[in-house]
């Protein structure tokens, strides 16, 4: 059993605090993805779990055991690096068998385990090549092979697909997903790519500035973001944020409006809203539709991008703010044409307007 438990984990370099008290519970066999913009501390956190970075304070448990002071090798983890970190002077076979060589395994054992890893990763034909003769995807496969031969309790992936081109990235993403099902091991995966996070994860941890913004299943985070940051980070194109005025409060429902938005009643569960407050209304571009009647939002078409399956329209709202709508149809809109949009109030999110809570200017 390899649960991972991070309790109030902190990391600072001198007076610079990189990780500011993180609590995460990762269950055995779970695929957990740390996601966040660059510099949010997600890689540092992963390296702390691996044992490559010291833990300044807090407690780290792997498999019910406190491992704060254990060297990496004794934590029962394997790690796959963004730069692959495969040894350039060894063949693929030697690279994959490296951990076994280090621990003094017999030749038969090495051969058997390398063969099994090669079968799982479909790279039997590569075993006698050198890293310089491999493509990026093949190199990453070797790195994963080196990780799986030791049968670790925990796999750590540090942005493993960032150096691959887009098509290969998708293939490898699926392979890693399959690998997780096959091995059933606990995996912690760091990425800045929300698509990887959404597709692979059982549990997503969204990080920002060394703090956890939200932890949850991908769809929970998508449909119910806890704050402006998570709301804006997940989903593409990212969520529209409109500055609105609270007109009325009725139980859990809040009536809001602004210059371009007709009054609409939305759920106000994230904070205590009072009449007259400023608030932020979050609308996913996918949930906006061209109104049949008068609609709730009014503006003019500023730009359209036709992608075939959907059409992304940038609308200049009546109050001057921009709005992105992803309409699930291929349609032609004239630039400058008046446009009325509608949305399901249940799918709108109301956030308190706190300075620094998130990037409100991000559309």
């Amino acid at each position, binding site marked *: 059993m390899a649960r991972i438990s991070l309790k109030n984990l902190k990391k600072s370099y001198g007076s610079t605090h990189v990780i500011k008290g993180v609590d995460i519970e990762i269950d055995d066999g779970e695929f957990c993805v740390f996601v966040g913009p660059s510099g949010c501390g997600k890689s540092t956190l992963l390296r702390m779990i*691996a*044992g*490559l970075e010291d833990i300044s304070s807090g407690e780290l448990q792997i498999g019910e055991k406190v491992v704060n002071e254990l*060297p*990496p*090798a*004794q934590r029962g*983890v*394997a*790690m796959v*690096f963004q*730069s692959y*970190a*495969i*040894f*350039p*002077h*060894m063949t693929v076979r030697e690279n994959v068998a*490296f*951990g076994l*060589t*280090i*621990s003094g395994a017999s030749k038969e054992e090495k051969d058997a385990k390398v063969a099994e890893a090669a079968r799982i990763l479909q790279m039997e034909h590569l075993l006698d090549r050198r890293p310089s003769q491999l493509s990026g995807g093949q190199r990453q496969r070797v790195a994963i092979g*080196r990780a799986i031969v*030791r049968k670790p309790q925990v796999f750590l992936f540090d942005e493993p697909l960032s150096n691959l081109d887009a098509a290969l990235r998708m293939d490898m993403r699926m392979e890693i997903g399959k690998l997780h099902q096959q091995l059933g091991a606990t995996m912690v995966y760091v990425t800045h790519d929300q698509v990887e996070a959404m597709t692979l994860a059982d549990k997503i941890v969204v990080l920002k500035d060394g703090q956890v913004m939200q932890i949850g299943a991908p769809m929970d985070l998508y449909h119910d973001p806890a704050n402006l940051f998570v709301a804006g980070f997940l989903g593409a194109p990212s969520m529209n944020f409109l500055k609105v005025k609270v007109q009325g409060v009725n139980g859990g429902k809040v009536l809001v409006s602004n210059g371009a938005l007709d009054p609409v009643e939305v759920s106000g569960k994230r904070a205590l809203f009072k009449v007259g407050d400023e608030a932020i209304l979050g609308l996913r571009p996918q949930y906006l539709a061209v109104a049949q009647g008068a609609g709730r939002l009014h503006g003019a078409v500023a730009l359209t991008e036709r992608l075939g399956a959907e059409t992304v329209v940038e609308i200049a709202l009546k109050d001057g703010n921009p709005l992105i709508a992803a309409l699930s149809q291929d349609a032609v809109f004239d630039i400058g044409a008046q446009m009325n949009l509608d949305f399901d109030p249940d799918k709108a999110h109301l956030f308190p307007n706190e300075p620094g809570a998130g990037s409100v200017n991000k559309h």
Partner: protein
Amino acid sequence: MASKFTVSNGTGWLMAGPAVLLIAGFVILPFFLAFAFSFTNQRLISPNATEFVGLANYRQLLDVTTVTLEPVRDDAGAIVIKDGAPEYPSLRTLTRNNPDRPDLAGMREWFSFSLGGEDRTYVLARDVVFMTAVINTFIFVLIVAPVQAGVALGLALLINQRLRGINVFRAIYFMPVVVSIVVVSLLWRLIYDGQSGLLNNLLGAISFGMIPPVDWLGNPSTALGAIIAMSIWQAVGFHMVIWLSGLQTISPTLYEAAAIEGASKWQVFRYITWPGLRNTAVLILIVITMQAFGLFAQIDVMTNGGPLDSTQTIVFQAIERGYGKQDISGGSAISVILFVIVLSISLIQRWLTREKT
């Protein structure tokens, strides 16, 4: 199509010109002149015309032969014992004015050995001093190359750490390199002094007077060793820096990957550091070998080849002969021999350390 060198780059040639001329005049021309002189009887200053003498200079330097002598027997046929060892006929009877052995005329004993029987084999060389110089040079190279490379690697590993004040150590180890070898040699002559030298005082102090003072540079059995030790110390910082640059090209993630796999310090060195230093090692080995073959300044300042020729070296001999004895052709021949030796060793080293595919 016109060559790249001649087309519209007069400015380039003008800029490179002085350097090209100097290199041609002081490096390339002397290189070919040395080859040419080595086949003549050219002297530094001589009223006589230069003559072509073929391989005579080389024969003079390299002629080596063996003579096996039976021990002297008395009238009864018993071996004459002198000073506890069998007596052998004098070599002089063979090498001086002996009409039967004109090939041995002028040769001298280099060393002798016995293959178990009564007979003794004498190795004769026409130029024993040169042979001693060759042997000394090889001893110097064979000790300095691995030891200096090894110590430099050790220092490089030590200073390749993130420690407070590590640059101070880097500077300390590198310092001897920036001091002229002549100055270093003069200073070490004081250190090695037989009476009140620093080394003797130090040894005396740590052994409470048990180790008697040694005249390090005046004793044939310690002089070459003393020069070897000093030479290693002087240039080790230079090679340390080259090793260091090699160490820093190894990606830190490789070390992290090894740490996660549980490699010990030795395994990290064996599987990651050393293979990553392969090209650096080839470079360092070749550079040290070439520098070591050029051993001259230390000898010239500290011992002048003595005592008893125990610190003669090839380059010292070349200069001694060419300028000391004004025998430019002999000195040139030595230079050419050195060139051939160094070239072949470099080629062998390159072949041994080639990338195996």
